[in-house]
């Protein structure tokens, strides 16, 4: 025996015996299974055969209500309302023809379209209920209940339905829901999503779908041969998804939306000390309620084909030349490289000839001799043209990238655009052309190939306000447990970029940005708020689609920034005239001050437009 132990040691049980004991246990286990099989298949065969033959077990899912979405104060932005739907179970449609005819009369729907819906699923999933119609009204429900005996296999079920009480408010943030697509299904199958599931398609609804969706429940019922319910075998309560509290302040959001009105554009408001988004507006917008029970093909096409792209969230998807609000970046790059000091002056005669190309300043009469401070306050373009010929373009690119341009802000929304910070290498690779000094000139004041989203430029502004620290922008504030009402997750501020800026240069820029608003010759004076130090910068970005994009970016109070805001009105004209007054009122609301009554902006007199013979700006969002 191979397993014999050395002589001289006595064992209570020999190895061979132990093996036999083990094999005995194995035999017992097999015998146990054998007995259970005997019990199931011989003794209880009739019972189980009956259950399986009549296929009498039905599973009716009870959809879980999605989690509620509120703003930071608890104002409800998305909730659920009860809705009644009509279901049929194909396997139970015993009298298929007559039942369908009756249903088509009651629902007032053509028989062919009802049959098409049922036929498509009849073969494969005979026992899975099919939703024939949602939103049954009371008269319909009464009619169906009356005819219950003549409609075997037909069920009415109450289901929670998404409802957005504020309609279009914050629609780009909230997003919308819809039936899961094939593509999402393959991506999400392992997380427990199945065919026909309703999921978030865009915005917060999409990004936080797993938190919001909850867990479906259902009933298992036994039906008799004619498909009529006999008894309920089991019930599982659906569990509602968790409540999401967003960082936005719905009052600021509402005011910002009013301020923008019918103009096309975007407004974003943030707390630069945390990265919390307090409002995010993109106009035109849409009503997410339209998507809830499946948007019609016609309406969907209308939204898609609209030339103003209402589904696009301009704050993160729109890529625009930033115009003059980019100038402080060029200035910081120049100061850091040491090519100029604060005393350096250039002459602005209203026009500047670089070789044979004329570059104009927005003030055609010229600014005279200007230093950097005046060039920013009065937004002199020719100062920057001449400055750009001294600075290396890579310096400007590096500074822009360090402040987060050309990369995603990583906000908790989908489909964010990256923007573009050009460089000679980039141009060689994509345009197969060398970088010309003219390209640097254009870049120095935020034109040319440079593209940014409004949120990126807001991040840059926050970076100035916070001495180089840029916090990751986010919309999530808290996740609250539906049952206990307690916060299960609280979003903490996260530093996204920590730009190393020369503090002396930055202090100069910040002081100058304050003068943009406080000085009487400043382009941003319309954003002035009484007793509050506001710092800001205007921009009017030339683009091939018409009038300039009106930009204004600001933060306040300058000594301890509580709010940063960016306003961008597509083809709105002059930033200081169109956007600055909007930013002022949004900041007043955010800081809890009385909001100045709205006056129509004074008509545009002076054009803050650099009339440059620039190549067509590529990739500008319409």
């Amino acid at each position, binding site marked *: 025996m*191979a397993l014999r132990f050395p002589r001289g040691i006595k064992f209570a049980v020999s190895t061979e015996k132990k093996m036999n004991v083990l094999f005995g246990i194995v035999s017992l286990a097999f015998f146990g299974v054998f007995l259970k099989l005997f019990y199931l*298949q011989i003794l209880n065969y009739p019972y189980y055969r009956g259950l399986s033959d009549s296929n009498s077990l039905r599973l009716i899912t009870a959809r879980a209500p999605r989690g509620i979405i509120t703003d930071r104060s608890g104002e409800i932005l998305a909730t659920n309302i009860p809705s009644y739907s009509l279901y049929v179970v194909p396997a139970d449609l015993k009298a298929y023809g007559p039942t369908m005819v009756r249903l088509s009369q009651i629902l007032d729907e053509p028989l062919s379209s009802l049959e098409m819906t049922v036929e498509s699923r009849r073969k494969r999933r005979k026992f899975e209920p099919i939703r024939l119609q949602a939103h049954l009204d009371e008269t319909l429900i009464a009619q169906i209940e009356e005819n219950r005996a003549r409609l075997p296999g037909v069920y009415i079920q109450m289901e929670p339905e998404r409802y957005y009480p504020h309609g279009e408010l914050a629609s780009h943030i909230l997003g919308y829901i819809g039936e899961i697509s094939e593509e999402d299904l393959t991506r999400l199958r392992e997380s427990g999503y199945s065919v026909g599931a309703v999921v978030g398609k865009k915005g917060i609804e999409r990004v936080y779908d797993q938190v919001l969706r909850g867990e479906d429940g259902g009933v*298992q019922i036994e039906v008799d041969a004619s498909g009529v319910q006999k008894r309920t075998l089991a019930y599982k309560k659906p569990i509602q998804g968790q409540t999401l509290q967003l960082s936005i302040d719905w009052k600021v959001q509402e005011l910002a939306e009013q301020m923008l009105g019918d103009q096309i554009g975007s407004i974003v408001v943030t707390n630069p000390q945390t990265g919390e988004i307090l409002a995010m507006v993109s106009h035109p917008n849409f009503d997410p309620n339209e998507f809830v029970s499946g948007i019609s093909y016609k309406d969907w096409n209308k939204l898609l084909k609209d030339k103003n792209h209402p589904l696009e969230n301009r704050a993160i998807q729109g890529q625009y030349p930033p115009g003059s609000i980019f100038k402080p970046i060029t200035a910081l790059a120049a100061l850091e490289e040491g090519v100029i000091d604060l005393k350096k002056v250039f002459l602005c005669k209203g026009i500047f000839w670089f070789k044979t190309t004329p570059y104009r300043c927005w003030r055609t009469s010229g600014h005279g001799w200007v230093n950097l401070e005046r060039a920013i306050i009065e937004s002199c373009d020719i100062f920057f043209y001449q400055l750009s010929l001294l600075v290396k373009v890579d310096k400007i690119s590096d500074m822009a990238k360090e402040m987060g341009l050309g990369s995603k802000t990583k906000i908790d929304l989908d489909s964010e655009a990256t923007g573009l910070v050009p460089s000679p290498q980039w141009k060689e690779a994509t345009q197969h052309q060398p970088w010309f000094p003219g390209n640097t000139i254009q870049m120095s004041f935020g034109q040319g190939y440079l593209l940014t989203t409004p949120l990126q430029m807001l991040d840059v502004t926050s970076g100035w306000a916070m001495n180089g620290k840029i916090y990751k922008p986010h919309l999530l504030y808290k996740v609250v447990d539906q049952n206990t009402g307690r916060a299960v997750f609280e979003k903490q501020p996260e530093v996204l970029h920590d730009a190393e800026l020369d503090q002396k240069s930055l202090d100069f820029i910040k002081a100058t940005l304050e003068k943009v608003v406080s000085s009487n010759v400043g382009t941003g004076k319309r954003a002035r708020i009484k007793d509050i130090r506001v710092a800001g910068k205007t921009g009017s970005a030339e683009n091939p689609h018409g009038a300039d994009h009106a930009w204004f970016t600001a933060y306040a109070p300058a000594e301890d920034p509580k709010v940063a805001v960016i306003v961008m009105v597509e083809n709105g004209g002059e930033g200081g005239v169109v956007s600055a007054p909007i930013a002022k009122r949004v900041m007043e609301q955010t800081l809890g001050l009385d909001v100045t009554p709205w006056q129509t902006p004074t008509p545009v007199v002076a054009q803050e437009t650099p009339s440059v013979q620039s190549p067509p700006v590529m990739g500008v969002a319409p």
Partner: protein
Amino acid sequence: MKIKSIFQSYFRGVDWALITCVLSLSVIGFFVIYSATVHGGEMAELWRKQIFWFGISLITMWVFSKIDYRFWLEASYIFYVVSIISLLVVLFIGDQTNGARRWIKLGFISYQPSELAKLSVLLVLARYIGSQTIELYFLRRFFLLLSLLIVPLLLILKQPDLGSALLLIPVSFILMYVGGIRVRWLAWVGLTALASAPLIWHFLKDYQRERLAVFIDPQDDPLGAGYNIIQSVIAIGSGGISGKGYMQGTQTQLSFIPEHHTDFIFSVVGEEWGFVGCVFVLGFYYFMIQRIFEISKKARDREGALLALGIAGMFTVQIIINVGMTVGLLPVTGLTLPFISYGGSSLMFSYAAIGILLNISYANRRPVLITGKG
């Protein structure tokens, strides 16, 4: 008749009974997988894949039967260290599915470290217990053995892979018991483990707790895990003595039972082939285990014997837990039915184990070959 004699000597000493058993089970597997998946849309081609894997597995078995099993034992500590490292790696960079990290992607193949860990713990224990005799009477040796088991066990539980952990524990205890560790100590460890069950509960993921809760009362979750058990029991019960006939199982064909080609494949057997079919399949398994016990008893050395016994234990636990689950005796653990369930890598591991067993039995008979008439 030279060719014939070469042929004879080549195949002499091969445990034909064992091979017949596992081949029969695999063939049964093809038929059941075909029935369970051919109408399943995207799964309709799975049975072809399974046959492909079967081919690979046969080659694997042949290769393993040619490698002296002593090699695995000699290298067991290396395997052990490698598997511990890969278990650590998978915790950090593994692919996450259903909230568990179990897989490492190496190019186009995915590799499940817990699979290797099971084998390497088995090898290490067989090696350690097999090479010691009196020393096992010392308590510290016992603790060393326990720690050899516990380190990978905790890592596997952390993933978490309850099924693999459930396999490891009984197999290790069987080896320690037969190897000569005092029964009293084993009993103490067992009792301590039971007493610390609440602690283990703490380690489990929600879905695992759910499975255990559902086992205690399937009605608790009639739509999730409980649903599977209820439907599986109905399927098996409705099969009766002779079953509803091949491809005729209504529960199976109508997709009432989820995962019926992997975890719940035995309910397809029960529904379509009835009591007779079930007993037939169980009979093959029982006979297979019995053969492995024989190989163990006749092995040339202690280590080989323990290795064979460990493999027997592993197969037994896997079969009983899986079948027990489908008939409603045991909780849902995600263990598949060896040789029958769909799945390439588990089929390969099973055939590799058979290859090792063949080598153990072959080594045992080799002297006969040498001194035979030749």
